[in-house]
């Protein structure tokens, strides 16, 4: 009897042992298709991969991309916040009957804090920033392997960080005054998911942007100044950013100096080469561009003219259409009156063709994907002209203005404007030269919130067609989702 009991016990014990023999190792799994981000970066190569990831975010929903991605839940908005949107919000473009009103509330300035397009933009800019902050966290520890390369990566990361914060400032600040105490942006320098930062003042925001730009230039100077790839920022892109920010901040001499650095290196394109800039046949005048290499990268300007779908969603206003001289070579690269599509008759209408696609696409069949030229030297001729004018150097200002006009208008005879007429001429030329490049709304905002009026040519039944000097809409509202998640975030007045 006793023996059997022992045997029973043994059998039960053995069975239990078998039953519970599985060990916890069995629930160890590791990701095979992604890199675990909980550890510091291991090499400069990894830093470079993350950097490419940040550049990829420029192709994102709230930066330079306009093509909606389709998922099962419907189309996701792509406001093209720094390519198409500033023009859709200005007097250069007007919405047509052909539009799907996905961006109407933004282009008609009727947004409130729950506007999705604005939230997408806000999040996308900071997404760019979070990537470069991871690089900047680890890059110094990795630099001994190849200091020149490390400094180049660091320079790019700092320049990208400065640019994304500046672009946020362009939409969300109520003023561009260099010393304003009004809220600017939250300046993020460390990657921290739990942070709940407040907004700095406009002045402090500028301080940080300039510090990063200058550090970027210093890093490029200390290492490789340029990777040689026009798709990546280099020391010249950093100078370009410095010139642009200086113009907004009214640091006229800085704007002149930085522009001079660029003008000395980048000539204006020949008239014959000018059209090729827009079809990516050449890189004349281009300091830095964000590359869209196929439809899968997206497209920068298709929420204005969607050539592939034969929809001119926003058309050039007759006002800007009428600004160009018959001898102006820019017109044919910028605007076209398109009647037929794939051989089918269509009511002729004005379209923006500047970003319709890469060569060799025909005028009607633009593929839509084309590089977004972020910095082009022509901008810095006009920047230097405006800054010099503000410094009282009218002759230098006129020289730069004439240089642009001579390069663009056949048989142009140098103008002789002076005083207020010279400033008007600089502003006019800036509008004509940089049309449909994401500048107009910000320039009007910069020029003391010059009221916008396009009421004479509204296509749609909508009666909202003007923006007054004192409208709240000159500054975008901070998204309500951010306000809810971050109690330190301050809303703009009026929202």
């Amino acid at each position, binding site marked *: 009897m006793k023996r059997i009991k022992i045997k029973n016990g043994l059998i039960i014990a053995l069975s239990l042992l078998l039953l519970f023999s599985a060990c916890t190792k069995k629930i*160890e*799994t590791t990701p095979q298709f992604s890199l675990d981000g909980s550890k510091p970066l291991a090499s400069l190569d990894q830093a470079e991969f993350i950097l*490419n990831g940040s550049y990829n975010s420029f192709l994102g929903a709230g930066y330079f991309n306009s093509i909606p991605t389709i998922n099962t839940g419907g*189309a996701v908005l792509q406001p093209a916040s720094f390519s198409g949107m500033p023009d859709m919000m200005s007097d250069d473009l007007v919405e047509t009957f052909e539009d799907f009103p996905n961006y109407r509330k933004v282009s008609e300035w009727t947004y409130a804090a729950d506007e999705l397009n604005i939230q997408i933009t806000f999040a996308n800019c900071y*997404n760019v920033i979070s990537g470069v902050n991871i690089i900047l966290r680890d890059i110094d520890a990795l630099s001994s392997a190849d200091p020149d390369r490390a400094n180049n990566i660091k320079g790019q990361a700092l320049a990208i960080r400065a640019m994304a914060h500046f672009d946020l400032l362009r939409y969300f600040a109520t003023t561009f005054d260099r010393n304003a105490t009004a809220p600017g942006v939250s300046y993020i320098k460390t990657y921290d998911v739990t942070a*709940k930062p407040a907004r700095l003042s406009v002045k402090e925001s500028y301080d940080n942007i300039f510090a990063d730009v200058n550090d970027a230039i210093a890093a490029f100077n200390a290492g490789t100044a340029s990777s040689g790839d026009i798709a990546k920022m280099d020391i010249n892109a950093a100078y370009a950013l410095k010139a642009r920010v200086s113009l907004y901040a009214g640091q006229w001499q800085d704007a002149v100096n930085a522009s001079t650095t660029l003008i000395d290196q980048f000539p204006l394109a020949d008239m014959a080469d000018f059209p090729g800039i827009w079809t990516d046949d050449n890189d004349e005048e281009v300091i830095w561009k964000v590359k869209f290499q196929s439809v899968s990268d997206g497209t920068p300007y298709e929420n204005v003219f969607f050539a592939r779908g034969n929809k001119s969603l926003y058309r050039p206003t007759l006002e800007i259409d009428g600004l160009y001289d018959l001898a102006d070579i820019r017109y044919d690269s910028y605007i076209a009156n398109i009647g037929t599509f794939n051989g089918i008759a269509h009511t002729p209408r004005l379209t923006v063709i500047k970003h319709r696609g890469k060569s060799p696409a025909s005028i009607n069949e633009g593929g839509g994907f084309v590089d977004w030229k972020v910095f082009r030297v022509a901008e810095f001729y006009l920047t230097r002209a405006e800054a010099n004018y503000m410094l009282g150097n009218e002759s230098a200002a006129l020289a730069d203005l004439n240089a642009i006009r001579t390069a663009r208008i056949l048989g142009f005879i140098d103008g002789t404007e002076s005083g207020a007429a010279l400033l008007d001429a600089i502003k006019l030329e800036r509008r004509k030269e940089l049309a449909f490049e994401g500048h107009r709304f910000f320039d009007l905002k910069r020029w003391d919130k010059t009221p916008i009026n396009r009421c004479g040519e509204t296509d749609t039944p909508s009666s909202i067609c003007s923006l007054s000097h004192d409208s709240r809409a000159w500054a975008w509202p901070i998204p309500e989702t951010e306000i809810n998640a971050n109690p330190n975030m301050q809303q703009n007045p009026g929202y």
Partner: protein
Amino acid sequence: MKKLVLLVLITVTGVLFAGAQQTISGKVTDDKSGNPMPGVSISLKNGKAIGTTDAQGNFALNVPSNTASVVFSFIGYNDVEQKTGQGMMTIKMSSGKNQSLTEVVVTGYGNRSKRSYTGSAGTVAIDEIHTQPIASFDQLLQGQMTGVSVKTGTGQPGSSADVLIRGRASLSGGTNPLYIVDGVEINAADFATMNQGDFETINVLKDAAAASIYGSRAARGVVVITTKRGRAGKTKFNYDFQYGQSDWTRSKLKLMNSAEKLGYELEHGNPNGWTPQDVDSLSKINTDWESVFFHKGITQSHQLSASGGNERTKFYTSLGYFDQTGVVRTTGLKRYTGRINIESGTDRLKYGINATLGYSKLQNTRENDQYIGSPLNAILWSLPYITPYDKNGEFTIDNTANAQPNPLRELLLNTSSTDQLKAVGNIFLEYKIPFVKDLTAKTSWGADYTQNEIQAYVDPSTYASTQVVGSTGSFAHAFNRTTRIIGTTSLNFKRSFGEHDFSITAYNEYIPTKARSFGFTGYGLILPFQNEGGITAGTADNGFIPTVGGNSPANRALLSYFAEADYGYLNRYFIHAGFRRDGSSRFGINKRWANFFNVAGAWIISDENFFASLKNKINLFKVKLSYGTAGNDEANLGDFPSRPLFGKVNYAGNPGLSLNSPGNPNLQWEQKASFNFGIEFGILKNRVSGSVEFYNDKTTNLFYSLPVSQTTGFTTQISNAGSLRNRGIELQLKIVPVKTKQFSWTIDGNFTYNKNTVLSLPNGTDTVNFGSTTLKIGMPANTFYLVKYAGVDPATGNPLYYTKDGKGTTQVYDPGDRVFFGTADAPYYGGITNTFNYKGIELEVFWIYSFGNEIYNNDRLNVENPAYLVSGLSKDLLREWRNPGDITNIPSANSDYQLGNTNYFLENGGFWRLRNIRLSYDIPKSFLGKSTINSLRVFVQGQNLYTYTKYRGYDPELPPAEQSVHQGAVYPPLKTITFGINIGL
């Protein structure tokens, strides 16, 4: 203490000196065929099983001498109660509505008699499941039982349903229940490739005591399915056939006709520049885009099965074919299935295999989106004065400002299909360990293997082609496979001594899941082949560079140790306890393991002596109580939610890495604690029977996408935060108003009320916005949060909005004025079945109902926003404000249109629907004469023939993917009428 000892002594003596015995013996046969019936269960009247019949249908058993009668039960037959003490018994059983099955609850890890069951579980009427012509079985759960809410808002053949058991218990985590077929976990999405004709029992486990044996995966409820088993005896063959037609329902959303549309365009600036002559000729065209897209669908199915065996080895096999074409042209599902279940062994050792292989080919179209290239959107957005074909029979090109791609071209030329191969099987080995009485070891190993081959062809002439690389068509071909292994090993000790029934089982379970996918898309479909042959080799010049991808959609493992114990006394008092420890690879190294437990009890009051006087009126009165916990590890964020992950991206031809999610190393199990109290009753000889249950479930450590400051680069971070409660009442009632020899009428109804309440949320802030819905403490999840629309200012035509306090109105839209509306999850739902039977002719009428919820009708927004002037528009706009003084609720087309952010498009989601009506006739055996046919049934049935709703669209049910909004591209539900025949040989 002394008293207890005394009690134990008495019980023990009771065991040792059990009362006198009597012997009963006899034979059980089928009343129609006269064939002997092996394997029939024989039990005492109190439910205690005492034996089964042998291969010749004979039995001889010892029963206590005071036993007055015994009950015979067999799957598919009505129970028979027979008095003892009359010598050799001759039992004739008649086939019926699976009476005996409803008396068993199958938990997947073991069967329990319903009588002794302490948990809350519902059983599905299997007959419905077998005959309703729907490919995906989960859709059929609708209205079948209390506590199970099913959304089936699409008619696309093969679509799965969205099933919620006892309310929405998770916010960011998975909510669909766990499906177990013969012990193997199955994805709901794959039911389209399984044949529900093979299912024998379906039980839905709802409360902690029932479901928590599945611990880690049980928080969402469990649907346990077993497939048919062979039975000893002569081999039986069955052939089932069904054929029918499907039709569509017309949408309640009415659009302008050509004349109205042209008039409206002219009134608003004539964007297309129509001349009076154009208007005249175009007004004569009135294309009915519904008729262009929809046609009659055909459904047919065949199933052949055989079962039989001897006492040692039993088998069941089946072959199935199902073919359904949808009402949208080109869509449909074809399915081929086969199954073999074999069980063999001796009293000591048993082993078996259950295996099924299925193959399906699904052709579908885009649905539930707002893409202009989705053909189903074009039903609303195409112009009534455009025809699908021109005079030459070519596809018309819409060259108006609308430029809507010809939807018929998109539908007919662009094809997409999914070929699914699915194999599910398990093998088991059960061994009664010698030397130790009543100790059984069992091990079961199963696998669920699914592979999908997905092909999508985009024709170069279509609109979709303009959206792809190179704008010259594309061909995509992708493949993925998922393998899930389930290994369960258990040791069970079960012993009855006298009036004590005792059972304890210890388990170990290991479930690894792995999946891989890869695919490519090729471009430049210039050659005339709709496959890889048509792809042009890519160069930098032609741009046709193919995209290639691959991923690991699943890579996880679950390890569990658990035990459960049951004790029953006098077959009247039952208690149950379970404990479980689970580890999941999905969590961080310190947060992997969690413990779950449950306790439950049941008491059959009607068997008490003090109840004896009522016994002839109240046949059954049982109360049960349970409490326990269960877990959820599916945070809907892949298999590595605890880690920050860099994913692959590309920029300018260079590879890059981008941080996809911030991860949360402290992420841990979501936990649900459930309380359940239930009463089961049967009165007037069980002419009225049913149950009432009350439950209170609280989910804590909710998986929650915690909004973070977007300055961090992310909008949310997955976390455990907040809690919510589902509290509800479930009523089930079965009434037999008439029961005579020739005519019977049965009413079977169920009703559920579920109240979902958010109890706490993190961050001290209680309002979080998810577009149109919100989370607010004290309110249900998916509560709509919108500005309240106040109509139109008669003077200006501008929309008016109520201010937050609801007292005043304003013309300026301000999100600060948003207020709370109803919830999108229906709190009230259920089903009612009426069955009439007269001499074998049976009429079954099955209604389902659901009410108390609201739906955001985005389909309407897309035809009511006047900004869409050039595309199809709703008739409602004809009533828009035009002149000062007009009284209307449609604002002027010139106004700032913000109605989409108001409650204007919120609609009542309630409905009642004639889900199924079936007339069948069992042809009597006498009629079949001496033919080899044992049974023959013919039937005709209709599905979704009538729906009552106020919802303005195709269907008040949301598609399974949606929680609150009807996005667009709605595939209407099918109205199907079929004829069927079942033959038994």
